[in-house]
């Protein structure tokens, strides 16, 4: 599929009050791969959020933004969200529709693919246009041990989801968005599946895959209670706590904290691995972090082979000291 001068639709992800950073990541990645394509956006929101979000969108340099506003969007339903995007696709006829590969958006993208019969490439980390003009998405397989370069085969259009945090956002000169168009929409009531409750997890502030700073613990932490020292470090530097499979299997952390092949694949700015030996099934989940710091008492631990900085020592001494040193730096 070739993208020259074609329309690309960006799914604008937001928190209700503001457009999320990963929307800018999508725009940066698409612009790099297809500079001559026309970028449009699709915004789904409840009516009360519209004004605030649209003023945020003005900064994104999109040619046109299709707005679907409906009270039903206050609760996430992949069927309802996908059918709203489908309505926009029928209007805008984009060559490519791009989502961030976050929990909800990737679900929406898959249901959209299923409903529209459009081809989908999930969880890409980069886009490229080959010499023959073909659009290619790079998707990590085997948890990132291998990268597959994938193209759409005989397709009029397609859907791609881009992993959050892998693209460095380029700020472009902001120009006003040329137009907003409201797309009428009747929500689909899904009688087959109903959400009856959402139990909020107060400790889960940011999803690991979107976090900038992760403090992760492994077998060396030793117990559930001992994770307190990691939580203190995370709190000091505005990070979140992750864990290795060993720590999750031991019951010290919840599964949604697990980093690795059977957990989350993360790309933070800083990854501090504490008491983690560095088994391949863990390291594939975090090896694309910008700066890896390893703290382990075993100088032979594998984790030191991929760490930018390592300290050989007792994590119960090192971690609290590091928290206080970094706090001093941050508070300047």
């Amino acid at each position, binding site marked *: 599929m070739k993208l020259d001068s074609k329309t690309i639709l960006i799914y604008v992800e937001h928190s209700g009050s503001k457009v999320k950073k990963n929307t800018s990541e999508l725009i940066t990645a698409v612009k790099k791969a297809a500079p001559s394509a026309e970028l449009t956006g699709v915004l789904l929101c409840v009516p009360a959020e519209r004004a605030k979000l649209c003023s945020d969108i003005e900064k994104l340099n999109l040619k046109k933004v299709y707005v679907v506003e409906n009270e039903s969007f206050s609760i996430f339903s992949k069927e309802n969200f996908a059918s709203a995007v489908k309505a926009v696709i029928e209007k805008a006829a984009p060559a490519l529709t791009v989502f961030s590969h976050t*929990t*909800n958006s990737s679900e929406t993208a*898959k*249901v959209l*693919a*299923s409903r529209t019969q459009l*081809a*989908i*490439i*999930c*969880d890409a980390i980069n886009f490229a246009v*080959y010499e023959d003009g*073909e659009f290619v998405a790079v*998707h*990590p*397989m*085997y*948890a*990132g*041990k*291998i*990268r*597959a*370069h*994938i*193209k*759409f*085969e005989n397709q009029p259009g*397609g859907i791609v989801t881009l992993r959050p945090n892998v693209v460095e956002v380029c700020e472009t000169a902001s120009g006003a968005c040329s137009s907003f168009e409201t797309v009428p929409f009747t929500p689909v009531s*899904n*009688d*087959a*599946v109903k959400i*009856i*409750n*959402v139990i*909020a997890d107060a400790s889960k502030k940011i999803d690991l895959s979107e976090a900038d700073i992760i403090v992760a613990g492994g077998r060396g932490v030793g117990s559930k209670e001992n994770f307190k020292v990691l939580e203190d470090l995370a709190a000091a530097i505005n990070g979140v706590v992750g864990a290795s499979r060993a720590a999750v299997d031991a019951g010290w952390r919840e*599964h949604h904290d697990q980093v690795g*092949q*059977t*957990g989350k694949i993360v790309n933070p700015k800083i990854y501090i691995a504490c008491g983690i030996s560095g*088994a*391949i*099934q863990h390291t594939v989940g975090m*090896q694309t972090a910008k*700066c*890896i710091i390893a703290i382990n008492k075993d*100088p032979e631990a594998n984790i*030191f082979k*991929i*760490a*930018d*900085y390592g*300290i*050989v*020592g007792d994590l119960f001494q*090192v971690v609290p000291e590091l928290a206080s*040193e*970094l706090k001093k*730096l941050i508070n300047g």
Partner: protein
Amino acid sequence: MNILVLVKQTPDTESKIKLNSDNTAIETGDLKYIINPYDEYAIEEAIKLSEKFADSKVTLICLGNAALKETTETLRKGLAMGASDAILIDAAGLNTACPYLTANAIYQNISSLKYDIILSGMKAVDDDYSCVPTLLAGMLNIPAVTAIVKLTVSPDQKTAECEREGESGREVLISSLPALFSAQKGLNEPRYPSLKGIMAAKKKEIANKKAEAVSPKIKIVKLSTPPPRPAGKIVKGDFPNNVKELASLLRSEAKVI
């Protein structure tokens, strides 16, 4: 209750993966295979349901190369855990690098079967696409609830309550049946096959099926390996000086704090 479980074999998660000389495929010679870890949760959940509801049948469905022993070994292990039947759809000649084609090949073979619940892993740890469950459910026109960590089927077997990790917390959902559920880690603790189960599994027939190829919608142009990460440095010195040194390097050299 009739339960179908989608299973496949994947290289062991501890394996190193190497590419062949022209970067079109991985070297499979030295690889050790396991059941895709998420599929084990699906099998376990199906067996637990079959133990709870009388007259249940658990049928394993595997799309794989029928000529490879790893494919039948996967099914034998699932049978040894307690599944009643196994269907092997031969993937030879199919481009299974396209999730649409994979879902379609499974659809062709299960659309006429009787089922109340389809279980699968939330993704396979080889291609990491995670698309097949949703695409298949769409083809079958049944609901799909992905990455579940809890499943409770109502006594009348008409609905199921399940839980999944959503963006804003743990979602509790009720789905009508039949439906497809994909399993996330945390759903259960897969059992080890008993010796009796292993012996019984050896005697069970695996039904061999085929699928008509449809045009793939995506194609892998090439494979590559990620650039290796250069080795970093161990910050030397005694505690706490080494920690002070590390903090200062993070600001002055790495510029991340």
